[in-house]
């Protein structure tokens, strides 16, 4: 009797269990018959520099070794990268902290084997006055940054990723067509995970979707993050320049013009990468003019004196004298920028500049990293470094979350990532945006103020040290 009862109860329970399972399976009417096959723990959308390094970092994370990680990349697999002789016009200035991150999963070693160029010194000055600031580590031993071509960074990361074996599943030529996110439906019990409909027709469910799909992030739009944008109404012209008469090309130069900053980043002993931010009309003109006129325009932008503000000049001289008396050895030698003699064929390109800031980086089961969450003016070369900082932080947070048994997509640990990164990124964005506004004017009081401010900062070595530390964290 009792046995029969037990058996009946068991059957009842089984039936109920089966019904429930069927119910939940029907929620995801999958094309593939195997239900667990289309299930991933973490999906990274976008296999660029930031997305790729996220995949690398997660794949390298010991805590996540049992998790299935999928990287979705819209472009085709280009095979192994072959280093071309000519330099690419798209470069990044990687900070020492980014180098440490890349080293941690072996991508930096690959980059070193390809090519990179260190920056030992930086000089920033402007066209409206003689004020300038220089940065360098004591004795010029440690690098402030490394100039690496984007292609080389990506190749290094992809090599490191492939060296991990099949730890991370890379799906080339695939992007997400439709997102179904939890919480967007009426009842979040029914849809606890992110459902992705991919362009190759398959479906994927994941506990955590990481959006690393750049400034026009589809993940960000689908998740409905509140986003702030500001069009700078500026265009960045990039090119690869050939320098004359340089001995050691290890200085990054940046001059603020009222139309926008012009920067020369050392690529090799003879070559520098140009990032010239200017008005869209000028940019169009600069792209069209012949090479020798372009070289003249660059040299003029670096050297011309016609925008000098006489009042600011006088005040600055007076200020310098005072500072000289207080800190006798504070005035560093002013170096003259190099002369450009040629521009490489076909290396000129332009892209518009925008400030994008997503007010939140995470919601339940979704996280944004890199340009998907924040994009800023290239004047400090911090954009990609902030993205790599996101990678480092999110990797740490997810490892810690899994160590204490949390679901990688659960909101509590993700919020930790968000607040930590926003505490770092927002001030950087604000100060860069502020600098951009400050230097895009010719209004005399502001010119005077910024000249004195820059000169004062230059004289106070401890502030400079702080800035260098801040930039390298």
């Amino acid at each position, binding site marked *: *009797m*009792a*046995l029969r*009862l*037990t058996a009946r*109860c*068991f059957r*009842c*329970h*089984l039936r109920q269990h089966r019904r*429930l*399972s069927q119910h*939940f399976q029907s929620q995801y009417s999958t094309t593939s018959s195997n*239900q*667990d096959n289309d*299930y991933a723990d973490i999906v990274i959308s976008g296999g660029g520099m930031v997305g790729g390094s996220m995949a690398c970092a997660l794949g390298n994370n*010991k*805590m996540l*070794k*049992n998790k299935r990680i999928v990287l979705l990349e819209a472009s085709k697999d280009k095979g192994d990268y072959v280093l071309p002789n000519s330099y690419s016009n798209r470069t990044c200035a990687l900070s020492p902290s980014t180098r440490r991150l890349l080293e941690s999963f072996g991508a930096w070693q690959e980059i070193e084997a390809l090519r990179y160029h260190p920056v030992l010194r930086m000089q920033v000055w402007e066209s409206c006055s003689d004020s300038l600031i220089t940065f360098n580590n004591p004795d010029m031993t440690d690098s402030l940054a490394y100039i690496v071509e984007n292609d080389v960074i990506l190749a290094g990361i992809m090599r490191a990723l492939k060296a991990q074996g099949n730890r991370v599943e890379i799906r080339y030529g695939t992007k997400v067509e439709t997102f179904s996110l939890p919480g967007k439906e*009426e*009842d*979040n*019990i029914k849809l*606890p*995970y992110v459902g992705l409909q991919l362009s190759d027709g398959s479906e994927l469910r994941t506990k955590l979707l990481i959006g690393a799909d750049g400034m026009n992030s589809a993940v960000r739009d689908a998740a409905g993050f509140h986003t702030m944008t500001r069009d700078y109404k500026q265009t960045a012209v990039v090119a690869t320049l050939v320098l004359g008469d340089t001995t050691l090309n290890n200085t990054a130069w940046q001059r603020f013009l009222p139309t926008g900053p012009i920067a020369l980043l050392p690529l090799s002993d003879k070559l520098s990468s140009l990032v010239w931010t200017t008005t869209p009309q000028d940019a169009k003109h600069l792209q069209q003019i012949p090479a020798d006129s372009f070289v003249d325009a660059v040299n003029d932008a670096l050297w011309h004196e016609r925008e000098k503000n006489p009042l600011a000049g006088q005040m600055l001289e007076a200020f310098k004298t005072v500072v000289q008396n207080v800190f006798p050895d504070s005035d560093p030698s002013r170096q003259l920028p190099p002369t450009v003699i040629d521009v490489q064929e076909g290396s000129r390109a332009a892209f518009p500049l925008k400030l994008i800031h997503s007010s939140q980086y995470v919601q*339940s089961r979704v996280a944004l990293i890199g340009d998907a969450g924040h994009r800023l003016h290239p004047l400090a070369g911090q954009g990609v470094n902030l993205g790599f900082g996101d990678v480092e932080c999110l990797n740490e947070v997810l490892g810690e979350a*899994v*160590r*204490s*048994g*949390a*679901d990688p997509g*659960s*909101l*509590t*640990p993700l*919020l930790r990532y968000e*607040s930590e990164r926003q*505490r*770092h990124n*927002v*001030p*950087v964005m*604000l*100060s860069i945006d502020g600098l951009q506004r400050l230097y895009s004017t010719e209004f005399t009081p502001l010119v005077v103020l910024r000249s004195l401010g820059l000169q004062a900062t230059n004289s106070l070595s401890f502030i400079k040290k*702080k*800035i260098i530390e*801040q930039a390298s964290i």
Partner: protein
Amino acid sequence: MTSGRVCLGHGLFYIFINSRILFIPLVFIFVKMNVRQMFFTFGNICNAFTRNLSSSGSKGLSEIERRIGKRPMTLQNTDNVRIHFCQSSTVASIHTAFPYRQRKRRSPDLTFSRSRSQSTEHMSSEEKAKKFQRPKAQSTIDEQEISHFSALSSLWWDEGGEFEALHSLNELRIPLIRDAMMSQKTIDQYRADKPLEGFWVLDVGSGGGILSEPLARLGASVIGVEASEENIKIAQAHLLHDPAIRDNIKYIHTTVEDIAETQAGKFDAVVASEVLEHVADANMFVSSACKLVRPGGSVFFTTLNKTAVSYALGIVVAEQMLKLVSPGTHDWDKFIAPLDLQYMLEKNNFSTRLVHGMWYNPFSKRWSWSKDTSINYALHAVRAPAVEALEENVWTTETESASEPAPQKD
């Protein structure tokens, strides 16, 4: 450089909020006045206030109705209503739970299922029903509590919702349990991703499974015991979504007291997190929980202290002012001081290993460890290894090791 300023501003704010300077005037008032009397007056005012709110608007309930599509189980607030929670469904779930153990595991706990089925085999269904319908006085379930949480259960897994504080409490209690239990393993047995592998953990008052699921992810085999059937359903429904832990958790609709006799000494750890402050008879609850632990095993409690501060912050501020937890969740009379709990545990042959205070910051919505146990605290106690049990084990492990090459522990 500016980020430093932001941090500093944040830090100052944090110190300001968390400093006990704020509470000194409150404490002063409490000491001056007749504390109990004040509690009752204040509590009555608040109760009347909340009752009025719920009768006029009852927005919360209609929201829940809309979500789960039906009216949640509510119980009349009269003393003569007895809840029939432990009926045949309990028996069914227990019976289905234990064959699973038999099938999945080769642990020393195999006898668990057998002893259970044998013990009920000779009983008829009426006898069983009678057995599980205990007189109310012996029950440690409080009916008001159950109806309250059942109404909320569809919101269990919204991390920004009703149970936000419980979700973030995982950041403290999971490492506490993990580290305490990991220390029992040798270095060869330790796996970084599954530190609790091979342990049987009983989660008392598992609710929607907020604590059970992380423990299972760490490798433990978890039995969740819960008095509300609706919560069991919610927890099971949620569990089905995660194939990685689907087979490691079993939720059972029963009470600790019910399984205390039959499953005595079967668990490596019993966790009663945020439960003790809801039970009607803490003494009985603690001794039942203690019975379930094997000699040398652990119990973990997290609960609220019985102090004036815990009344002011835990009930007045958290429930009625900030609505961090829904009003009516806690009853100060049922709170228990750590020393009382330690005393109860000592009577059950447990020695307390640690008592930590826990602070909840309502602004950052995070918990942190603290020396101060005056509001929330966590307690870990270890059962003394029984001498005769040890001797028995020597014989059994020797005979078992012949048939079973890899015993999990001991």
